[in-house]
């Protein structure tokens, strides 16, 4: 019996060895392209889009696999620039932003229609945006719209407070010396048409309290001043009509924000803000996205949806920009098995894949195909959250020691697709912010008596790490060739990560680093995702928890906001009201550089407290056939499909895609320029008017 078993094992092993040998052989045979490469005779794109979409309803799903598919079917006010992801005109042909940065006025194009021929109007956007916030839909992405006035209170079921005379309670009434009976002054801003709704929006912020009796009582108990102000007044539930969305006429749409949010325009290209056809949604309810019911607003119509198999998009000839849609048919394959999709790619049955799809074992080989492999920095970071509420991790020096004891360059080399990270915003994504940050950091460092060299050594500084640990009361001693830290409370520190091969590899790497540099062996635990989430959110972990964060929009704020407010989602237990204030102050600034500097101050404050161990900025890591053009490795891996085209002339195929972001494709550039024209015209005429005004004054 024993013999049989070992024969089995040997045979199995032999096969595995044989298989890897075979693979090895093929890899040494160098060919120009990775597998079968021939441009299709038709304008068809076959794209691996990631796991099966949760829904094709733009307001419902949160994942990137859904975003990629939904972007083909639905258009928004603006579209992502295929390279920079900045907002470019879509259904809105132009827009204006008020001087204080809190109001946006969109001029919609008149020829935009849904797939059933109905015109797309500002009213459809109002419907879509209100629906997206409705508590009944309970969209997980609703927070994206929270900068819109009264969006959050509506979404979370709150009420206004009104006295017997019909006066609403305003936040300014709570300030000392205010007269709650008097109506606060309305400051009309003359931005866009003057309407009753607009005046209401320009009023100071009203007080909102939870509509739910229990939560309201709880809130008022905590805030006696508010309790006194609210006493004897009735609460009026906030409705969708109170949210700052307004259709001035069929083709003019206005949004009022709570406070300036300079990244808001870029956010509007997100699938969450893409327009749906109200009658269809009303008629079919949750069934409206079925192929037989769906009405779309984008460049493509849904031909078929076979879950776990394919989503077929066909060009909509009635789309307003149909003349500039080059691919007639996109076949999305919802696959997430990396080897399977690469096999399909090699066999020439798939033209491109989504991001993070080349397994690390394949990278060395795939990298050789310089016309196909795309590795660019991504607006995604990986870090370890530290539970700062428990000893010994509540000690800053201990946290710093662990952060310093990781050789990030070695980690990046080991991971092959990532870049080392020492702060909390990704490297190479926001160059202008990074510039401002360098400036702010040098000032703050001088103030704190830290040399820039020392600061740069945050990449890895084992010596300082040991010293800090010693200062924290856990001296590190030399032991043989390595180190030992006998007094360290080992039982109180561990690493928890959500189950995945990559996460395991990183955890083991860190474990080795800490052992090597601090003499501390940290145990590793893995958990399945849905178990991991509640446990880390509730800070039920000792020491470290693996986390990643993907940008929602192209602004450093999307990362820094993770630590905003006491109830933040950072899973660290770290919070500082001064940090919140810095972020708020920053967003009030309209000058982008001044704002970035403020944000950098906040980042410095947070990083000085080291609630996280930053590890890396992710890389795009995906592959496309050289004949697929106009598909760029942007920082979010979201693609505006109408820029993509199939090039049949091998001479014009993409070559050396390392430069793909710098090289200009005249066809794509022209298409973007054409779209931008309406916005530039508007800006130019506004500038002209301004100049005339100033001239007149002079």
């Amino acid at each position, binding site marked *: 019996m024993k013999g049989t078993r070992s024969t089995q094992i040997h045979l*199995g092993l032999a096969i595995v060895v044989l298989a890897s040998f075979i693979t090895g052989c093929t890899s040494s045979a160098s060919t120009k392209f990775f597998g079968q490469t021939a441009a299709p005779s038709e304008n068809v794109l076959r794209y691996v889009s990631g796991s099966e979409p949760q829904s094709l309803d733009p307001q419902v799903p949160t994942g990137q696999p859904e975003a990629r598919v939904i972007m083909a079917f639905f258009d928004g006010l603006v579209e992502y620039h295929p390279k920079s992801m900045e907002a470019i005109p879509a259904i809105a042909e132009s827009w204006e932003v008020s001087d204080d940065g809190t109001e946006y006025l969109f001029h919609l194009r008149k020829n935009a229609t849904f797939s059933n021929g109905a015109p797309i109007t500002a009213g459809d956007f109002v419907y879509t945006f209100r629906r997206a916030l409705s508590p009944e839909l309970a969209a997980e992405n*609703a927070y994206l719209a929270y900068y819109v006035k009264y969006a959050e209170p509506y979404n979370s079921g709150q009420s206004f407070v009104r006295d017997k005379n019909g006066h609403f309670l305003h936040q300014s009434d709570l300030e000392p010396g205010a007269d709650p009976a008097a109506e606060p002054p309305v400051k009309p801003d003359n931005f866009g048409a003057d309407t009753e709704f607009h005046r209401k929006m320009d009023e100071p912020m009203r007080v909102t309290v939870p509509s739910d009796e229990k*939560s309201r009582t709880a809130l008022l108990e905590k805030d006696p001043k508010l309790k006194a102000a609210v006493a004897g007044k009735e609460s009026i539930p906030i409705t969708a009509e109170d949210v700052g969305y307004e259709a001035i006429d069929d083709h003019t749409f206005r949004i009022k924000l709570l406070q300036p949010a300079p990244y808001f325009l870029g956010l509007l290209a997100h699938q969450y803000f893409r327009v749906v056809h109200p009658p269809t949604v009303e008629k079919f309810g*949750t069934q409206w996205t079925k192929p037989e019911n769906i009405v779309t607003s984008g460049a493509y119509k849904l031909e078929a949806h076979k879950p776990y198999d394919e989503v077929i998009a066909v060009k909509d000839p009635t789309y307003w920009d149909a003349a500039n849609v080059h691919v007639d048919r996109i076949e999305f394959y919802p696959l997430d098995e990396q080897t399977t999709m690469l096999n399909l790619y090699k066999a020439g049955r798939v033209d491109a894949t989504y991001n993070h799809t080349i397994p690390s074992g394949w990278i060395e080989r795939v990298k050789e195909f310089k016309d196909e492999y795309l590795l660019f920095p991504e607006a995604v970071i990986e870090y370890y959250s530290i539970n700062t509420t428990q000893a010994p991790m509540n000690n800053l020096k201990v946290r710093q020691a662990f952060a310093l004891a990781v050789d990030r360059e070695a980690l990046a080399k080991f991971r092959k697709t990532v870049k080392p990270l020492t702060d909390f915003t990704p490297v190479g994504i926001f160059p202008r912010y990074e510039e401002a940050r360098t400036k702010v950091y040098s000032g703050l460092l001088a103030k704190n008596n830290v040399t820039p060299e020392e600061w740069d050594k945050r990449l890895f500084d084992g010596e300082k790490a040991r010293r800090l640990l010693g200062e924290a009361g856990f001296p590190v001693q030399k032991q043989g060739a390595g180190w030992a830290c006998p007094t360290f409370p080992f039982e109180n520190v561990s690493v928890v990560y959500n189950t995945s091969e990559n996460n395991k590899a990183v955890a083991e790497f860190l474990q080795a680093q800490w052992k090597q540099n601090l003499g501390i062996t940290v145990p590793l635990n893995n958990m399945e995702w849905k*178990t991991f989430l509640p446990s880390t959110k509730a800070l039920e972990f000792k020491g470290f928890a693996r986390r990643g964060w993907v940008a929602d929009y192209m602004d450093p704020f999307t990362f820094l906001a993770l630590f905003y407010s006491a109830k933040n989602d950072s899973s660290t237990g770290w919070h500082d009201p001064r940090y919140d204030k810095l972020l708020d102050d920053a967003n009030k600034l309209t000058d982008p550089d001044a704002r970035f500097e403020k944000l950098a101050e906040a980042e410095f404050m947070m990083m000085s407290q080291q609630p996280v161990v930053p590890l890396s900025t992710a890389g795009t890591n995906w592959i496309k056939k050289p004949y697929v053009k106009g598909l760029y490795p942007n920082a979010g891996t979201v693609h505006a499909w109408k820029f993509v085209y199939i090039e049949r002339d091998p001479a014009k195929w993409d070559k050396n895609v390392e430069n793909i972001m710098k090289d200009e494709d005249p066809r794509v550039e022209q298409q973007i320029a054409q779209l931008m024209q309406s916005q530039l015209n508007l800006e130019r005429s506004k500038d002209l008017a301004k100049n005339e005004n100033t001239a007149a004054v002079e």
Partner: protein
Amino acid sequence: MLNFILRRLLIIIPMALLVVTVTWGLIRMAPGNFYISERSLPPAVEQNIREKYGLDKPWYQQYGLMMLNIVKLDFGESLRYTGQSVNEIIYRHFPYSATIGLLAYLLALFIGLGAGLLAALRQNSPFDYSSMAFAMLGLSVPNFVLGPVLVLVFSLWLFWLPPARWGGGISSVILPVITLAAIYMAYIARLTRAGMLEVMRSDYIRTARAKGLNERSVLLKHGLRGGIIPVVSFTGPALASLLAGTVVVEKVFAIPGLGNIFIQSVLNRDEPLILGIVAFLSILIMIFNLVVDISYGFLDPRIRYE
């Protein structure tokens, strides 16, 4: 006989409900839920979701409601895939798994039985050795190795067959069917061989031979019926699990089958979908077991149902 079948059929219902109950309890014990994500929802929104799906009710009410729906054979809507009912999902994805599974089953049966039979008849011949060595190989190579090796050879070297996806008709079924069938084929071959060898030495075969029956009818009429009983008891449940879909093969070949969906439903904490598939599969398995038990009676006159 009829009594036996009826009794067994009636047992299936409480058994299935028991399986569903245990599964439900296990899901409820696992931490996390279908809507949790990295970003916390506002408490009011979370409350809305809980109300919408009845999660705010006491557990016994939730259990009662779920059971009531299941008795009505309505598993409700998937929590993850909004607007899709569980019945619709099972109805849509089962045929993929069933097609692959049934083809693999037939292939395994055909080749496994044939090879096993021949090996038993020519015991210790080169055919016996080589086929059994092959079977050993089939048993020891897991399908997640066999699948990729087949893909490498037939899809990436020879470009004969698609490496994955359902789309291309018969050609896209060949590799997954072979991958899936291999281990069953090997097992059936070995079981057949062993069963036949044992039966051919038994007294009643000697009697049959002594009566002067020709070797052919000894083998097919008497030998085979007894010899394949172990095969039948193996292939009954095997057929059920083949039809139900196998995760590995469905993943490797990107087949939108039930196995794939089942795993995803667990990862998504999609309770109605998990329960629906569990109920469906448990009934399927119990029915196949029943069929196996009934077929014993036809194969072996010594077995009687009381």
